[in-house]
C-alpha cells in the first residue's frame, strides 16, 4: 500500500502537534481537528487515513502530553518516520498504536511523496529508491505485537519486576 507523505522539519514539538488550549479534550477525533493548528493549518483538513508523517530529528520533543500522538491517530496517522524521536513521544506513540520508525535518510524523502513501508524487510521505498529503517527495540516490539500497551496490560495480573513479582 502506498502512502502520501506529510513532510516536517527538525524539532517538531508537542505544542505544535496539539496546542495547550486543547488538552482538556481526550477524544482523538476532537484533538485531530486541531492537529498542527497555527503551524501547519492545512493538515487537519487534508490528512487522510493511511497518510504518513516524515520528519527530521527530535520529532515530538517537549511535553509528555499523550494528546499529541492521540491527535495524530485521530487524524488517521498510523506510521511516523523520522531521523530521530524525542523519548517520551516515542513511547507514547507505540502505546497508542502509532509505529515510530527511525530512518537516517528521512530528510531525503520529499513532501507529497508516495511511499511504501516494508517493516519485515526493514526499509521504506519511494518510486525509485529504498531507505533502510532501524529495527524497533525488542521490549517495544512485544507491546506493538499485543496491539498497544493497554491490550498488553489488560491480560496481565502481575508483572515480574527486577525485585520480584508485583501485584
Amino acid at each position, binding site marked *: 500500500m502506498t502512502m502520501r507523505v506529510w513532510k516536517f522539519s527538525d524539532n517538531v514539538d508537542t505544542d505544535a502537534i496539539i496546542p495547550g488550549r486543547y488538552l*482538556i479534550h481526550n477524544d482523538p477525533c476532537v484533538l485531530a481537528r486541531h492537529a498542527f493548528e497555527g503551524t501547519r493549518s492545512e493538515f487537519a483538513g487534508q490528512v487522510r487515513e493511511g497518510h504518513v508523517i516524515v520528519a527530521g530529528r527530535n520529532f515530538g520533543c*517537549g511535553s509528555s502530553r499523550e494528546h499529541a500522538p492521540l491527535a495524530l491517530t485521530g487524524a488517521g496517522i498510523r506510521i511516523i518516520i523520522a531521523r530521530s524521536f524525542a523519548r517520551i513521544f516515542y513511547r507514547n506513540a507505540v502505546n497508542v498504536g502509532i509505529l515510530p520508525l527511525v530512518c537516517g535518510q528521512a530528510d531525503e524523502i520529499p513532501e507529497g511523496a508516495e511511499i511504501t513501508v516494508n517493516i519485515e524487510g526493514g526499509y521504506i521505498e519511494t518510486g525509485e529508491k529504498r531507505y533502510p529503517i532501524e529495527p524497533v527495540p525488542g521490549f517495544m516490539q512485544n507491546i506493538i505485537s499485543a496491539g498497544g500497551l*493497554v491490550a498488553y496490560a489488560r491480560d496481565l495480573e502481575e508483572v*515480574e519486576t527486577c525485585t520480584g513479582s508485583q501485584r
Partner: protein
Amino acid sequence: MGATVVEKIFSSRCGRPVRAGEVVMAPVDGAMIHDITGPLAIRNFFQMGGTKVFNPRKVIMLFDHQVPADSITAAENQAFMRTFAGDQGIHNYDIREGICHQVVMEKGLATPGEIIVGADSHTCMYGAAGVFATGIGSTDMGFVLKFGALYFRVPESIRVDVTGRFPRRVGPKDLILSIAHDIGADGATYQAIEFGGDTFERMGMEGRMTCCNMAIEMGAKAGIVPPDRITYAYLEGRRAVSPVDLSPDPDARYVDRRMYDVTDLAPQVAVPHNVDLAVPVKDVAGIRIDQVFIGSCTNGRFEDLAEAAEVLSDNRFSDAVRVIIIPASRDEYLKALRSGLIERFVSAGALVEAPCCGPCMGGAFGLLGPGEISLSTSNRNFRGRQGSTEAKVYLCSPATAAASAIYGEITDPREV
C-alpha cells in the same frame, strides 16, 4: 568499572548491579498525575482492567494547569479525578498547593535513591533531590497505576561539571540555558544528565531544581544532582530519611563529559522558538516586549521572586508591559507574602496570581496575541507555547525578566 548515579539508583532498587543500556521492569516509588494528563491515565488504568491502584499512598494527585477550572470541560476533568481519588483512597492536593513538581519537592515526596515517574515532562526536576525521576505519557501512567512498575531502559549519563562562583545577577537559569545551547535540543535524548562540581556543591536546592527541571529540554530522560548535606538539610522536617551515598564512582563511564566555569558567565536569553537558542542578553538587548512572566516550576520559587525583587528595587514596572508573577506553590507564595515581596510587586504594577502553571501551559490565561513578544522565566519557547503561533517567547532568569520589565525592553540585569 564504576557506576554512575543513575546506575547506582537502579542497582539499589533492583538489588543487583544494573548497567546503562539494560531494560528493566523497575518498581516505582511515586507516581504523579495532574489535571491535564491524569484523566487519560485513569481511563487507561481502567481499560487495562485496573480496579485498585498499586498503592494509593504512592500516587500523588493535584491540579495545577487549569486552576481554578477555566472551562466546563476542565471542571469535568477535575471532578472525574476527585472521584477517582476518593474511591481509591488517594490523597488529592486538588487546586490548593501549586505546581506539581514544586509540591512534590516541598512535601518531601521525592527522596534520594527513589525512582519516581510523573505524567508531565518536567518530572525530571526531582533529580535535584537525588531521585531518578522521569516524565511519562498517560498510557504508561495507566500501567504504573495498575502495577507500580514500568519498563525502563537504564540510560547512559552525560556528566556536567561546573566550577566557579556566579557573578552578580547571574545564576542557575543562565547556566542551564547555556548548557542547553551546547548540548542541543536533542543532544541528551535517551540519556541522563548528572550535574556536579563545586558550583553545584554550593548551589541551593532551588537552583538545582531549575537545572534538573530543564534536562528534558535537551531530550534527557533525567537530570540529577547526587544527594549531599544540602539535599538532606532540605528534607529535614519534610520527610525522615537516612542518607544514602549515591556519588558516582571515579571510574564511572559517561557518554560525554562537559566542563563549565561560571566565573565569567553572562546573563542568557533563549530566543524563539527553541530552548537551545541561548545567546547573551546583550545580543538581544533593546527588543521591545509586551509581557513578562515570572513563575513556573522552573523559576517560580521564593528565591526567584526575591531575585526579581532585588533587581526591581524601588522602581516601577513599565506601563507598556503586562507583568504576571505567579509563585510556584502556596508555601512559596506565603514566604513571598510574609517578606513583603508580593506587596512590592503589586505596587510596582504587576499582577500576582495564585500558584499554578499560568501562561506556561498556553491554555489557561495570560495568552499572547499575534505579533506579541513575551519574556518568560519558564522552560519552553516553542512556537505557540504561550498563545498565538505568531507570538514570540524569550526565556530568561528572574533577574533578567525583572530588569526588562522595568524598561519595557530586553535588558541586561547587571545594567540596572
